[in-house]
């Protein structure tokens, strides 16, 4: 670990903290339908979209209608993307002549992008056409991100409103998020990325003759426009197989820094939107602090583990940490930091191969996802995931002192706690359940690239990543098989919608409640005690759930590594 490494980490944290308030203020205005500086340019488009789609922006929806609207959008988006993947061979913008994607892979990929997972069973440059990249993957990058933010907005309104039956209008939230938040940042960001070296063209792959006279086919495409939304929307599906480790996706340490900031920006700012909407920004900062504590612990452990290297490398006289699967231009620190960011948020882009991380360095990304990706989290998804844990923590605190728990003026009662528990429990059911199935199936075991405990970690990571809608991988696992394509798609769907629908039910139930003013017996939810309580509940619930599985994978592997046992 070096001083310059820590400076990079601290600079990253400082920029995110600086973005929280201005971006939070802007987004609050956008979702309240107030004028912003982009209004003169974008408002006509917004009105036009409502007009052709028959949407009345003043008409609000009951939580159930809101949830059904959201599900309908997913169905249409899924069908469109599936069709595109199957038909791409005969459609334009296909200079590399990609053939139709196989049915199970197309199903997996369509589910993956609609659920904001962006799991890569496909290999970007070898599988999909430019049209699919743009009209399929890029579109879902926008829409799945906007969906996540919309759900978070509905839940925030649930807390902020008093005695109301509605939680907003899904179509309006979706449109505003896309037009006023995602698109403008992407347009500016794309230009900057191209300037820094990320390609953006529709040319065929280039054939080069290398200095030594060999033939090298260089894959190209409209990369920059997809990079921006892929990180800003915490999607993470790479244009190329190697994702953001590829020099075209991520040519310099500065583009790498821009990617990392984009991943956290919206999720961090949403905590401030929450604070503003419930009438006290300190409520937002308290949630941000919970996320910050968990994030920093992860960064320290991963950076330390990767900088320490492995016993195998030491035995060969190699010093300087673990560089297998990492790029020279990023080095250890920017690779370790990126890995923690991408799994804390539900992004899943990678700039180094997590499969080749040390046992403990790779365990932190795994834990981040298993905790529910609520450390900043996916855009929107992180905030509603965190609020579910807040409800649970408030409930636990209420039990301890024997009072009805309340949070930002809302009594937390049986229905709310049930919904929170349903959402929290469904995740381990998926990733532990499917991992258990996979490791007793010889055909599924055959997909592992590494032997020993690391092979188990690969499978556990795959189902964890899919359920958490992360999309990063211990990439050695050959997941493009019928079994993995279908079971991972199942995990993605359950992980996404069994989280969203209870969160929506919670939003509806909360909106109907009367707001009550805080009394002397109310637990203050803006101080260190509250932050400590929520961190404790997250770690304990998480720890009890997945510690046994971790013991079979990364922990035992770490012990084996220390003894220099190889598999």
């Amino acid at each position: 670990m070096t001083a310059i490494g820590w400076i990079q980490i601290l600079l990253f944290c400082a920029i995110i903290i600086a973005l929280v308030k201005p971006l939070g203020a802007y987004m609050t205005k956008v979702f309240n339908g107030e004028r912003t500086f982009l209004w003169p340019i974008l408002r006509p488009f917004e009105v036009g979209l409502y007009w052709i789609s028959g949407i009345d922006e003043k008409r609000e929806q009951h939580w159930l209608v809101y949830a059904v609207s959201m599900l309908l959008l997913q169905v249409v988006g899924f069908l469109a993307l599936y069709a595109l993947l199957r038909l791409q061979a005969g459609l334009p913008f296909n200079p590399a002549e990609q053939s139709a994607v196989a049915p199970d892979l197309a199903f997996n990929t369509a589910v993956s992008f609609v659920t904001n997972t962006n799991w890569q069973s496909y290999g970007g440059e070898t599988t999909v056409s430019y049209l699919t990249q743009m009209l399929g993957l890029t579109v879902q990058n926008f829409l799945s991100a906007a969906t996540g933010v919309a759900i978070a907005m509905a839940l925030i309104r649930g807390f902020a409103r008093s005695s109301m039956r509605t939680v907003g209008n899904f179509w309006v939230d979706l449109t505003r998020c896309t037009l006023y938040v995602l698109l403008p940042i992407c347009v500016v960001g794309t230009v900057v990325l191209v300037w820094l070296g990320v390609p953006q063209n529709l040319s065929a792959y280039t054939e080069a003759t290398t200095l030594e006279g060999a033939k090298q086919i260089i894959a190209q495409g409209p990369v920059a426009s997809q990079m921006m939304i892929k990180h800003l929307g915490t999607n993470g599906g790479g244009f190329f197989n190697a994702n953001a480790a590829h020099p075209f996706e991520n040519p310099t340490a500065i583009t790498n820094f821009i990617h990392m900031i984009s991943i956290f920006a919206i999720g961090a700012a949403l905590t401030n939107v929450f604070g503003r909407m419930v009438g006290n920004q300190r409520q937002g900062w308290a949630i941000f602090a919970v996320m910050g504590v968990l994030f920093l612990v992860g960064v320290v452990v991963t950076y330390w583990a990767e900088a320490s290297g492995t016993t195998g490398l030491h035995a060969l006289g190699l010093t300087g940490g673990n560089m297998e699967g990492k790029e020279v231009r990023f080095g250890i620190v920017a690779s370790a930091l990126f890995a923690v960011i991408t799994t804390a948020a539900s992004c899943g882009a990678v700039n180094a191969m997590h499969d080749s991380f040390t046992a403990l360095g790779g365990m932190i990304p795994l834990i981040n996802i298993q905790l529910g990706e609520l450390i900043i989290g996916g855009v929107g998804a992180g905030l509603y995931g965190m609020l579910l844990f807040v409800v649970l923590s408030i409930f636990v605190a209420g039990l301890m002192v024997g009072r009805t728990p309340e949070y930002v003026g809302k009594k937390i009662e049986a229905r709310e706690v049930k919904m929170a528990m349903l959402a929290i429990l469904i995740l381990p059911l998926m990733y532990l359940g499917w991992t258990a199935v996979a490791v007793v199936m010889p055909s599924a075991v055959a997909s592992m690239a590494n032997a020993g405990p690391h092979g188990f970690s690969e499978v556990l990571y795959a189902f964890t990543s899919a359920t958490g809608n992360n999309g990063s991988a211990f990439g050695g696992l050959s997941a493009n098989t019928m079994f993995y394509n279908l079971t991972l798609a199942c995990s993605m769907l359950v992980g996404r919608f069994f989280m969203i629908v209870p969160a929506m039910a919670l939003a509806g139930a909360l909106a109907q409640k009367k707001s009550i003013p805080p009394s002397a017996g109310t637990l203050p939810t803006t101080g260190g005690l509250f932050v400590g309580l929520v961190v404790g509940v997250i770690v304990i619930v998480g720890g009890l759930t997945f510690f046994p599985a971790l013991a079979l994978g990364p922990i035992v592997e770490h012990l084996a590594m220390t003894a220099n046992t190889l598999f």
Partner: protein
Amino acid sequence: MLKEIRPAIILTIALSIITGLAYPLAMTGIAGTFFPSQAGGSLIEKDGKVIGSALIGQEFTGDQYFHGRPSATSAPDPSDSTKTVSAPYNAANSSGSNLGPTSKALNDRIKEDVEKLKAENPSAPIPLDLVTASGSGLDPHISPEAALFQVPRVAKARKMSEDSVRKLVTDRIEGRQAGIFGEPRVNVLALNMALDQASAN
């Protein structure tokens, strides 16, 4: 609820056109106009022929060139399309080795490379990045230590003095960006092109 079907279909189509066609195509137009070289993949041409991209590593095996890092990329086996064969620096199929910290295969590979390098230059410690595969398999850079490590071999093969080769390397060391970001590095392709130029003179 049935009336939500119309926005589901029409809004999806409209937003698809905006975000899936208008946005990437407009960006392609702007990028090509203002930054044609970057937008086109930072290609390097020599005598009208593309010899590579400044951002993409390529394979060097000869003693007279500086070598990049090990690359774990592969290509479909020409004789059996269900299998793959090793194809280092295949820029049409990027990937890392994905071998874990307790992998015997990884350990054997590194050991073999370490021994080769020790025989080549017994006087310096083995640079870590020269024996570890990059994440993309297309890493265009090596560390300054890894470049300096190869100076004796390259100088001997080119019949140049070590000092002149070393100077070519030190001239091409790129520092951290803005003094903070990333790591010091040397672009292997740029270095080898400079080397060819120097030899020609």
